[in-house]
């Protein structure tokens, strides 16, 4: 129906101040739109969501489609997926981007299947190829492999985008954009999934999955008592502590701390790894760590090969050494 090419960004605003992924995608969409001469559009569902529409315009949306109805007050995957698919059929955007939050990853596959189009999960980059197609860059195997994916024959090209991948644009009060109200369709079915309770959890001050610095410890720390030293170091570094499976099994630390395929995936800016050999189940979960310091008596341990800095020494002694050094070096 519309002549212009559109790039859509589905707006996830539920935990607005904590989760900026929609703004981050709008920033990237603006770059892609420039390359393909397209219009950046946000799509907002909810009850009294006008303020969000304005916010998205200030962050790069040129148009905002808004369905504002009390029926949409609570996020509901079946209703939201129905509505989003209906709007895509009506306006036929080239591209539909959704934040790879858990809700985003729940709604996106349903919309893609309803529209019989392709979807790439958890992208860490997006670009445009020479044919004007969206190149979707997605990691797999815990970041050990990267795949470039296109959607050659069907539209829209759909992708979910990993939070934190792109930098949001600065808030621009002067930005102009059009808010287009879309009424709730008469054909809207009653939701097949009922939400009995949805409570925002008090923000946890620290989370290992999103921590900038993570300290992991393995059996090489020596004992349960010595392992505790990692928490002292963590306090100094404002870091979170993770552990390997043998350490969790030995009950040196709770299973909440498990970093691995079956535990937490981490993406710190700096990872300190003490006495960890580096089994694949563990290393698969830390492939996104940007700078790795590993300490191990065995220079041939896999973890030492993965490190930017590999210190061949007793993990426990180096931990003490770093604690001492930090106490001298931290400027308050």
């Amino acid at each position, binding site marked *: 129906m519309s002549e212009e090419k559109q790039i859509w960004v589905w707006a996830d605003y539920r935990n607005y101040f904590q989760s900026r992924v929609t703004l981050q995608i709008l920033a990237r969409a603006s770059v892609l739109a420039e390359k393909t001469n397209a219009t950046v559009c946000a799509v907002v569902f909810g009850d009294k969501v006008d303020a969000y529409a304005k916010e998205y315009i200030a962050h790069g949306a040129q148009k905002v489609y808004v369905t504002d109805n009390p029926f949409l007050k609570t996020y509901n*995957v079946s209703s939201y997926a129905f509505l989003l698919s209906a709007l895509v059929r009506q306006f036929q955007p080239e591209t539909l981007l959704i934040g790879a*939050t*858990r*809700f985003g*990853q*729940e709604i996106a*596959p*349903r919309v893609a*299947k*309803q529209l*019989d189009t*392709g979807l790439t*999960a958890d992208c860490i980059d997006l670009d445009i190829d020479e044919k004007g197609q969206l*190149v979707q860059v997605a*990691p*797999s*195997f*815990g970041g050990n492999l*990267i795949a*470039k*994916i*296109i*959607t*050659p*024959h069907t539209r829209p090209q759909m992708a979910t985008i990993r939070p934190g991948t792109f930098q949001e644009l600065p808030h621009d009060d002067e930005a102009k954009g059009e808010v287009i109200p879309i009424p709730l369709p008469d054909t809207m079915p009653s939701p097949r*999934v*009922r*939400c*009995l*309770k*949805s*409570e925002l*959890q008090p*923000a946890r001050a620290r989370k290992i999955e999103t921590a*900038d610095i993570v300290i992991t410890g393995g059996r090489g720390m020596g004992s349960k008592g010595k392992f505790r030293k990692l928490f002292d170091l963590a306090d100094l*570094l*404002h870091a979170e502590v993770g552990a390997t499976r043998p350490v969790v099994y030995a009950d040196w630390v709770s*299973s909440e701390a498990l970093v691995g*395929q*079956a*535990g937490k995936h981490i993406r*710190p*800016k700096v990872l300190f790894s003490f006495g960890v050999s580096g089994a694949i189940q563990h290393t698969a979960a830390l492939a996104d760590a940007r700078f790795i*310091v590993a300490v191990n008596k065995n220079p041939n341990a896999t973890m*030492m*090969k*993965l*490190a*930017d*800095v*590999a*210190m061949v*020494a007793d993990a426990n002694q*180096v931990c003490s*050494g*770093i604690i001492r*050094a930090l106490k001298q*070096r*931290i400027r*308050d």
Partner: protein
Amino acid sequence: MLHIIVCIKQVPMVSELPWDPKTGTLKRETAQGMMDPSARRALEAALQIKAGMGRNQAHITAVSMGPPMAKEILYEAKALGADQGVLLTDPRMAGADTCMTAFILGKFVTDHCPDAGLILCGSMSSDSETAQVGPQLAEALDIPAIGYARRLELVHDCVRVERHVDDFMELMEMDLPGLVTIDHAGESDLYTPRYVALGGVEAAFNAGDIRVMDGTALGLNKGFNALTSSPTKIIDVYSPATRKENRVLTGAVKKMVDTLFDDYGKIISSAMGKDLKTHDHEGDV
């Protein structure tokens, strides 16, 4: 009787990942496989539901789509307590993206398990990590679905699910038939998988066969080809550049720690968001 379908997937276990550069897909036949940890949790959930229901009140079908070697995880599923194992395997199914995988699994459930009441999947597999097949299978079957369950409970003809999604703790409910994916993150210990007792797999091998279905048995069209029918196409697969310097430090602990802070202090301090003193130890041997 409640017919529970558990979708399980074989994932490669080894660190070497054999990719076919021509098609950009995994050569699963050459990788050593294991049951995807998240699917294993889904199977555990099914076993617990069955155990809570009394004799002959539930029937568990474990189904997998994959190469012939994926039969292994179906034997394992039977050893763990699944009543039936079904392998959907055909060269024409190879290269399926999530959309086509959901289509094939959907065809199996619709045509061969019309009495399915509850379908369980892992929320996200450890290899391709898309978290898409569960929701898309629900769409293919036109049934409701709830993702990321940490606990599920059957209440008459409903299933009630507790989940943690994006900082929200939620309690959801839907009528059966429906599909639930079990949280892969394993933060709750409720569905920590059990393991097969010694000799259990062997017993399962002897206990009965795995039903193997190819495209024809499944009723796929003659010209069906999952690779070409998939809406997404992989154009390139690569390992992220190994840009690591991998600097190895040896010697006295104090000296190593000083080198760490002198040479990399900026990286550490910027991650901390605090200033660190970095000394210059030139000539300090």
